[in-house]
């Protein structure tokens, strides 16, 4: 048998499971990348010759830098444990223990270094900002003042309202407490009254003969021990 088909009657060769690469496409990609790299290294070299620091050329869609809206919260991770790869935490490059900047792939050990990095041109370019700030006009300043003032006023009002509400809630709670205590007191008094009434009623029905629970216990015990009395006529 000189058929090419194997035992399973298929035309597949024994390496067909491998991915087939489009060699032309990858060659084109590589040439583009190499050209870009060459250009960058040339620009770097020229910048170095001119005694300047090299920055990536702006693409044109950078945004303006704006003021920080929040402060770095250093207390958020207190008490947390994070596993670090064994090779981490040597130098700034890569992810390690500390403040990690994922845009620049750098790790910083303290907040001053971190904020200095955030202000640096390297970082601003990496997140696509120009490092320039929009100038504000007088009307914008007025608008901002109004906004800040309104926010403060609102906060103040909410504070007052919540305090009032808290007081109201507390008042209701106290009222309920007092009601509960009054009810308990009344119940206790009623029970006592009922008990005395009951005793009085029993005594009234049977006279002195009745043995109220516990009333003659002492006499009984003394009698059983042979002591009738100390000769006193008083009972």
């Amino acid at each position: 048998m000189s058929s090419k088909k194997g035992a399973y009657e298929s035309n597949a060769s024994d390496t067909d499971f491998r991915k087939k690469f489009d060699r032309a496409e990858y060659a084109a990609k590589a040439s583009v990348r190499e050209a870009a790299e060459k250009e960058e290294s040339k620009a770097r070299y020229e910048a170095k010759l001119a005694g300047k620091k090299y920055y990536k050329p702006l693409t044109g869609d950078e945004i303006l830098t704006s003021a920080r809206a929040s402060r770095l919260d250093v207390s958020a991770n207190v008490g947390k444990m994070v596993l670090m790869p064994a090779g981490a935490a040597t130098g700034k490059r890569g992810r390690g223990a500390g403040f990690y900047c994922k845009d620049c792939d750098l790790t910083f050990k303290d907040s001053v270094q971190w904020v200095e990095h955030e202000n640096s041109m390297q970082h601003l370019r990496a997140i696509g900002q120009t490092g320039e700030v929009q100038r504000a006009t007088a009307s914008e300043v007025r608008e901002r003042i109004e906004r800040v003032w309104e926010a403060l006023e609102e906060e103040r009002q909410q504070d007052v309202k919540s305090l009032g509400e808290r007081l109201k809630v507390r008042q209701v709670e106290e009222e309920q407490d007092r009601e509960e205590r009054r009810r308990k007191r009344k119940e206790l008094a009623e029970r006592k009254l009922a008990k005395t009434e009951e005793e009085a009623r029993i005594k009234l029905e049977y006279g002195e003969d009745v043995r109220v629970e516990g009333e003659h216990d002492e006499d009984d015990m003394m009698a059983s021990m042979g002591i009738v009395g100390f000769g006193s006529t008083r009972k």
Partner: protein
Amino acid sequence: MANHRADEKRFLDERGSGGPLAPNGLNPATIMEKPVRERIIDCYFWKDQCFALNEADIVDRVVVHVKFIGGTYGDAQRPSPFLCLAFKLLQLGPSDDILREYLDFGGEKFKYLRALACFYIRLTRQAKNVYNLLEPYLEDRRKLKRKTRMGTALTFIDQFVDDLLTKERVCATTLWKMPKREILEDLEVLEPRISPLGDIEDLLESDVEEMDGKGRDKSPGSEFGEVTPEREPGEMDVDKGANEGQTMEAESEVASGKV
């Protein structure tokens, strides 16, 4: 419209060369002294909260962070947020319109914003404008907290403005030597100022009449020696003698003052 740089590097590099000057002809980068400037640039508040501010963000920062005025405070001589923001204003160089917003509209609501704007105006504006812009706030009696290296003290906006107009050194900054108000009045640059208290001569006259039934002329301050002018002679001999001694002192003061 031109933009600001987010950081202070170019502002400080241009000192003495290309940068624009303040309206009073000083270089804004050198108005504050070098040690203070370096402390400001080194401090965390500057790096964290003064980065990439514009004129409107200044308002936010003042409202949230400025709780007292002062230069450097504490043993470490940390620069106050007030001083850091003043330095930021020197970098931004806001226009007169914006300063007016800070002073009037914002100043009515936020006293520290007014104080900051007054300080900045004193540092950068011409003498005439400084007097014209600051003098209305000699009637603002709101309290301010002031921190120094020694401790904290209570002051008022009018007192702060008066310090700015008359003193040489305020908030760790040596203020540029401004011509006195009288000189500017003589040169007819400024109108004579009408004090909200009224005319000073009238005030002194009325004081004298109130204090002294005989209408005797007194130097200002002599009223401290004349606490009980209505007392009848011969009522309390011992006290009267002491009182007379004080009056004689006051009279000698008057005499020396008149010469």
